[in-house]
């Protein structure tokens, strides 16, 4: 199934937010499905900053239980978490 326009937007926004935190240079060549934790060193500050910016940009609340590796392993996974949160 082709992703709809909102989902494409979402991927772009997540990428942009992540780039603001780790630097655009680091994200260059990282595909949406690539494993982030294998490709770069993400520390807890990055992660918490990312959570804050996702909450701010999308108006969602990321709970402690959402903060698990599966939801943050790729740009697509992060966008998926946001989709899920926005449906609620």
């Amino acid at each position, binding site marked *: 199934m082709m992703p709809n326009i909102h989902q494409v937007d979402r991927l772009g926004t997540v990428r942009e937010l992540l780039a603001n935190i780790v630097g655009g240079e680091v994200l260059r060549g990282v595909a949406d499905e690539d494993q982030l*934790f294998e490709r770069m060193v993400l520390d807890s500050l990055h992660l918490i900053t990312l959570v*804050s910016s996702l909450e701010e940009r999308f108006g969602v609340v990321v709970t*402690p239980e959402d903060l698990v590796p599966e939801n943050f392993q790729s740009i697509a996974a992060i966008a998926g978490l946001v989709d899920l949160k926005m449906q609620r």
Partner: protein
Amino acid sequence: MTRYLIHEALADAAQRWPDKTAARAEGRSLTYGALDLAADRVAGALAAMGVAGGDRVGVYMDKTVEAVAAIYGILRSGAAYVPLDPDAPPARCALIGQDCALAALVADEPRVRALQETGGAVAARGIVCGAEAPSGFETWAAVQAGAQTSPAAGTIDLDLAYILYTSGSTGRPKGVMISHRSALTFVDWACGEFSLQPDDTFSSHAPFHFDLSTFDLFAAASAGGTVTVVPRMTTLFPVRLAQWIASEAITVWYSVPSALSMLVRYGALDEHPIDSIRLLLFAGEVFPNKYLAELMRLAPKARYFNLYGPTETNVCTFHEVLDAPAPGDAPVPIGRPCANTRCLVEDEQGNVVTAAGVEGELIVQGSIVARGYWGDQEKTVERFTAPGTYRTGDVVRWSDQSHGRVLRFVGRRDHMVKSRGYRIELGEIEAALYAHAEVEEAAAVAVPDELLGSRILAFCAAPGALDEAQLHQLCQDRLPRYMVPERIATLRRLPRTPNGKVDRTHLLQEATRLAVSSTRSP
């Protein structure tokens, strides 16, 4: 039996409990017997490569059981180990390797290559964890399959056990030289004070290049307990960390406060209790009262200790937190000196002050103190004013409490700020900001100013929006007028250094951008 060297506990434990788990990392573990043997092979291989007593050997690898064995093997060879930050740029590690003239290196294969690619001349021999060894190196597997055993190295307690590099004010890393005697003074004190037992399971949260790790490694072995490395991914996800603590049945935890603040804030600890912990130690920065109190409520079975000491003194004072502090209280004391350690408070005129409440620089004396900075005689004599004496640059004061006299940390000597002639403690401003219910993190900084001495700005972080005017009012309600920050910027999170401390250098840059210099005013 009296021990003189930091690694002697391993051989003792291997004799007494050969089948007991010594170290666990990423799902793999080594018994004391296996660790002892692996360390012996490393020591033997290093000796065969020409490593001799007094040499330095780098450890540049992930926190694996091999890294633990490498550390013991290096010590057994008579050399000092130099842990290199596996996440730091290779160029910085090369700089450190050159600074202390590493004789050899134990490293992961990609990291050896990265180091060699920097072009810096760093240790052309050593042991590599990987399938292929570059020229001059042997693979870990070959070393372990060999029959080399470590010759008696003739090490004495005044020899160096390790060198820990910390960031230097001039931008060049400083190598803090810790002798066996210094390290063992700390470890022996810790084992006695905390009654560490063979059935204790120790977390290893801090990286090996950070001084908190020496407690995890050597106190665990000294007690005959098990040290368990927190997996990297687990450190990032607080709920996972809470679950990990429970599944590993950690009994002794030691970390920087910010890791614990994260656990309180995002760990859902009421649903994921961490009540296996009997001893909860923290050090490295001030633990915000609101998170400490919340942690004490969520994990009430543990005993809580604030440990204090710059890398140059291991840990030199300690304080048991018996009652949860209230948000507006002063930070918990740094406490009283460890065994065989003397703390002197010296005022600006150079007089030792003993009266409670008088501020002065903390000077630490005893066998717990480091030997100086590697290759930097100038800095060494400036801070290590006599053998076994270190001027911390930290301002403290004695405080009389019902159960005795304790030291309270006031601030950095070089963070002591004057504005318009008034003396200002930045920590006091931060404490005022923390009184706001929504504020999760606060930091005040002083921007040097030609006319005023300095201008005070503050940064606050909160999950929701904060009203700057309201924070300003809060400060005005609590602080003398001259201490009220001129701007209070709000952020989602305060920036942190790789070691987890609030990145004040970064904040100061931001503050400098925000502050309007008085000399530019009309």
